[in-house]
């Protein structure tokens, strides 16, 4: 960390506390969906029971609900009238994530060299952060704790511009068919539509915070019958959120981010003067 980027320790602490909690307690709406889903019997019921028991044990023992505590993924929305500098926001994300990894017993899941040595960074850093200017004077940090069993099933398809909604739904269903039981279903899906290849991918993660639920896609994915743990039946997915953006006349990018049932996320809002 460079000197001179004074950030408030309380701000670092707020991020760390939110991330440590996110690894152990699911957001209310996510837990509700897991609790209320009516599995189709047999192994679907065994898997959903294990998930619910696991959440109880995690809460009781303080152990993370999953050993893959994930990569820190962050979307920083910085108000154009905010008093926080970009450098301060960047430092805040890094320090908050570092503190959470240390204090929250996060697994060190990040390697520095993806192909050669695959040496572990030992800190679970760096975080994967994106910075976007938005209206207003607040700084909003959206975090995902991104597990990679599910991330390995995420992907992008470049459709023809005439593919339309049917084509988009078909692409999402097809990507989930390929994922099968690998990503720890029942999954939560983020779908990014439009932009460029990379923008569609970013939208597919941003969709978990700003997307619009697609009942049609949810039903289409559940019709695959992959089922909890990939052992068949219902539910395969418990949420599909979609976010769209302008794109080129020649294209229709569609990206899918697959999150496992442990849909771990946190949003932290900083008002003026709080960073």
């Amino acid at each position, binding site marked *: 960390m460079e000197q001179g980027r004074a950030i408030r320790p309380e701000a670092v602490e707020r991020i760390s506390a939110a991330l440590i909690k996110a690894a152990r307690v699911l957001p209310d709406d996510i837990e509700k969906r897991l609790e209320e889903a009516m599995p189709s019997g047999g192994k679907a019921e065994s898997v959903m029971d294990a998930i619910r028991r696991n959440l109880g044990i*995690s809460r009781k023992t*303080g*152990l993370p609900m999953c*050993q*893959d505590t994930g990569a820190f993924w962050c979307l920083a929305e910085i108000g154009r009238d905010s008093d926080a500098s970009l450098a301060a926001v960047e430092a805040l994300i890094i320090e908050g994530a570092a503190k959470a990894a240390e204090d929250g*017993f996060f697994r060190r899941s990040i390697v520095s060299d993806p192909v050669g040595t695959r040496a572990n960074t030992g800190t679970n850093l760096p975080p994967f952060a994106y910075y976007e200017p938005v209206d207003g004077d607040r700084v909003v940090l959206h975090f995902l704790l991104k597990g990679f069993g599910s991330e390995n099933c995420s992907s992008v398809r470049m459709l023809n511009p005439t593919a339309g909604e049917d084509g988009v739904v078909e692409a999402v269903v097809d990507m989930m068919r390929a994922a099968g039981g690998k990503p720890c279903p029942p999954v939560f899906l983020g779908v990014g539509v439009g932009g460029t290849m990379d923008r569609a991918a970013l939208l597919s993660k941003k969709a978990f915070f700003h997307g619009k639920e697609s009942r049609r896609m949810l039903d289409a994915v559940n019709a695959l019958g992959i*089922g909890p743990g990939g052992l068949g039946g219902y539910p395969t997915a418990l949420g599909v959120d979609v976010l769209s953006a302008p794109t080129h006349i020649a294209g229709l990018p569609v990206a899918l981010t697959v999150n496992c049932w442990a849909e771990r996320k946190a949003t932290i809002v900083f008002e003026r003067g709080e960073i």
Partner: protein
Amino acid sequence: MRRALHLPYAEEELRAIEAGDDVVVSGTLYVGRDQVHRRLFEAISAGGDPPFPFEGSGIYYMGPSPAPEGFPIGSAGPTTSARMDSFSPFLISHGLRLMIGKGPRREEVRKAIEDHQGLYLQAFGGCGALYASCIKRSEVIAYPDLGPEALLKLEVEDFPAICVIDSRGRQYHM
């Protein structure tokens, strides 16, 4: 049907388990994932001995989170088995016949299990805290440089799983 599997396993206990059975595992269980598989493959290919006896042993695809004080291990749920598929037939043919992970396997793995009377169990994905509560002891026995991916020896008790591929190569759903 619900069945018990005690490790190191006895042949008849392993072979009695059928695809679709609920299995409760107890005893000594070894842990290795991606990089351990690569190293076992390289060690055996070079004519060396593996760092633990394959006979009677099972391998659990897992990399735990750090253990807080007072706990033998941190969260300890299964990782995706498919990533081990390219190494598994080789290891099965060298005697490592019991595997525990999550998710589907390639046909070559199913075939190797059938040919060598192995067993593939699926643990509950994402249930790291639940599995931590079934682990009584944990120690690193090889490749400590791999950090969270090191080769571990565990003592487990009432570790729940589902048989997805049995010793005759029959597969549950998937």
